[in-house]
């Protein structure tokens, strides 16, 4: 998956979580904080996104333990193919 595809996938899943919770669509870019900002997602939504990203990309950035990330862009980079 390209970085754009990964970003699109994350945005789609966040919008779906927003719909499920009855909130409207939300604006998202690379600088958007995933938790603790304006996004209607909780840690379990994020865990689901991580599980599905691993399944799509075959990459597990947490295989050696937790990796710190806060924004949507930082999450995209965790799953980016090595350039």
């Amino acid at each position, binding site marked *: 998956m390209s970085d754009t595809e990964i970003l699109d996938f994350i945005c789609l899943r966040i919008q779906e979580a927003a719909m499920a919770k009855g909130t409207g669509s939300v604006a998202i870019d690379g600088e958007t904080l995933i938790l603790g900002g304006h996004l209607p997602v*909780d840690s*379990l939504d994020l*865990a689901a996104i991580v599980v599905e990203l691993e399944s799509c990309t075959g990459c597990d950035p947490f295989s050696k333990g937790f990796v710190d990330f806060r924004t949507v862009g930082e999450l995209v980079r965790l799953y980016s193919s090595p350039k």
Partner: protein
Amino acid sequence: MNLLRQLENGRDAQAVTQDDHPFTYQDLLQNVQDLKLELTPYRRPMVVSSEALTVLSALIACQELDIPLWIAHALGNRRDFDMVAESQKIDVRIGDGGQLEAIGGGAGTNSSGAFAIHIMTSGTTGTPKIARHALDALLGRISTNSLSQGSWLLTYPPSTFAGIQVLLTAISSGSPIVAYRTQSTIKLAEAICRYSITHVSATPTFWRAALMALHPSRAGNSLRQITIGGEIVDQSLLDTLRRAFPSARIAHIFASTEAGALFSVKDGYAGFPAAWLSTKIDGVELRIQDGILQVRSPRTMQAYVSGHPSPYTADGWLSAGDLVEVRGDRVYFSGRSDAIVNVGGAKVHPEEVERFILGIEGIADVVVVGVKNALSGAVLKADVVPMPGFEPEALRQKIARVCHSALPAHKIPRIIHMVPHVTTSFAGKKSGPLE
């Protein structure tokens, strides 16, 4: 009960239809006599076959020879078989078609014992537990109930406790059995029509899939007895079956490899009456300890012979590992005590979430599992089978909305996949709690 006598009474009537090949009681009797002769030098046989005909012949031949029989699941690999054969001192393997293969030291090297039936649990991890049962105990519920003749469909592998119960029930009542080596729901559902099957015992997972494959307008009119077991039975399945097959008796049965056949519930409601906790039901005493159902029954297994710790309490009760809760005048099953998923530190029983989702219109079946991850321990994933005519994507969004509005955060499946069918284990049950 002498099983051979049952065959002699049947004569030329149909006994078993195995993979669409009919066998009369006379054919079965001949099979048993041949096998009995070949088994004479052996003391500890193990049957490893997915053919009902072979398992049944082995059972009856061993009763005649008064030697114990081990029944293994045919889909296990050879290494697992060798391990069990060595630990149980098996001296002969009975394979498909009743073919014998001498094992280890061969015939006559090991001590014998009286006729007993050794059944293995169907769990997928670790060495199988092997439960020793007496035939009388296995027949206990069968002989105390008035048996109606009909034609049975075997939906379980013949090596499982449930499969053996169906075989014994059919033989005891002089009813023909239709059996296949495959457990394909489509094939089995077609057999209900082709053979005008009257009696079917199966898991809820089977029935949900069969309801889609088997439209009552074209079949199922022959069904007189529907039995459900092996997994938790939810009210929506009971209601759907009642609507689809209004003239059939519907019962859900509580049984396990270790506990044996305990009791069945025939009032059309999920769970069982709480009054049964203070009165015996079908000779079985019930109590709840720490939220887990315990039983004391004349039909439980005698012991594990596989070296596993005894599941009996010091005062003689058996824990079947089922979590129950009393609501009003009813006791409901809420899940297996060993099937708990840790979601962000909170414990969840996936079966509870499955039952909630099954209550949403348009859902044919669902399996909920925990998916491990580094952020939350596990997160719930639901694989959902939509009913025909329901648009999968719209249904997926509806499930998400309904779960978010009604369930606490840790019980909401955050991953929902729409699938054509759910994955089941060898014994026709849904997969374990984690993936």
